[in-house]
């Protein structure tokens, strides 16, 4: 059978293809926890960190939008 970290990397790439970034980050994390397979792999690091950054950006955007929604609701309520 495939080594767990290898399989996780493969699943991370498949998740990226489906634009499922949450799953991709989880799988990258699993792959990086494996025994040294990807410790010196620049491509792995780049993809992992880019996906993490993308998720952080999406989270910030969500907070901004939700923040605006809360303000809007409060404005509506308070007239």
């Amino acid at each position, binding site marked *: *059978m*495939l080594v767990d970290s290898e*399989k996780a990397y*493969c*699943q991370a*790439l*498949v998740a*990226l*293809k489906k*634009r499922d*970034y949450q799953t991709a980050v989880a799988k990258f994390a699993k792959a990086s926890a494996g025994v040294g397979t990807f410790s010196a792999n620049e*491509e792995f690091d780049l*993809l992992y960190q*880019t*996906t993490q*950054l*993308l998720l952080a*950006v*999406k989270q*910030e*955007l969500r907070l*901004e939008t939700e923040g605006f929604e809360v303000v809007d609701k409060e404005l509506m309520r308070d007239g």
Partner: protein
Amino acid sequence: MTERTRTLKSLEVVLESFLHRVVELKGERLTVLEGISRLDDIARQESTEKDFSTEVGDWFAEHNEWLTEKTIRPADASRISKILGEIKDGLKTSPEKSQETEKVSSEIERWQDTLKSEPGKLDSRLQKLVLRRGGETLAEVEKDSILKFTEHFESMFERWKDVSGGKAHILSALDDCLKSAYLQLNEEALILSGFIIYYLRLKNYLVEPYVKRLKAAESLIKKAKAESSYAG
């Protein structure tokens, strides 16, 4: 929309397009990895949707072209062969013996035999191809190269119309072209940028900063190509 939100939005687009491009570059390689991972899932019996023999049979049917095409590498062949061996061992120890499991076992043997011999076959096919190419006449090769260049030239002209449309100066269009080359690793945009820079140099423009950006984009594209040929 605030300036911060706009910046975040544009960062989101750049990051998503980068990741999408990487996945695109991996293309066929990713399909192979997906296939191997799927076989591994079957071997681990993680999927309970179908009967085990049916799952293996479906996998064979779906990936049958791997035996005849040069899709997989010797390392992949050895991985697949190993996983198939584990599936076969599992079938041997299984208390259920049916016509289906017998069929799957013999199909596994066929795959293992072919996978073992395929790397050698691939090598000899490649050698034949080199010899055949040596026999081509110069006129045929040139005709092909002219056709290819014409296609690229036409496509570059379309790109030029896109990037220059609505711009006030050639340098703004060049800036866009260099961005496409650098951020999207677009080779056509790189060639077009080089062409524009050469034109500007002949017209005595100061082009050094653009040459630096061109070289940076060129080295990124070369690196991506080398990695994609390594990764598939």
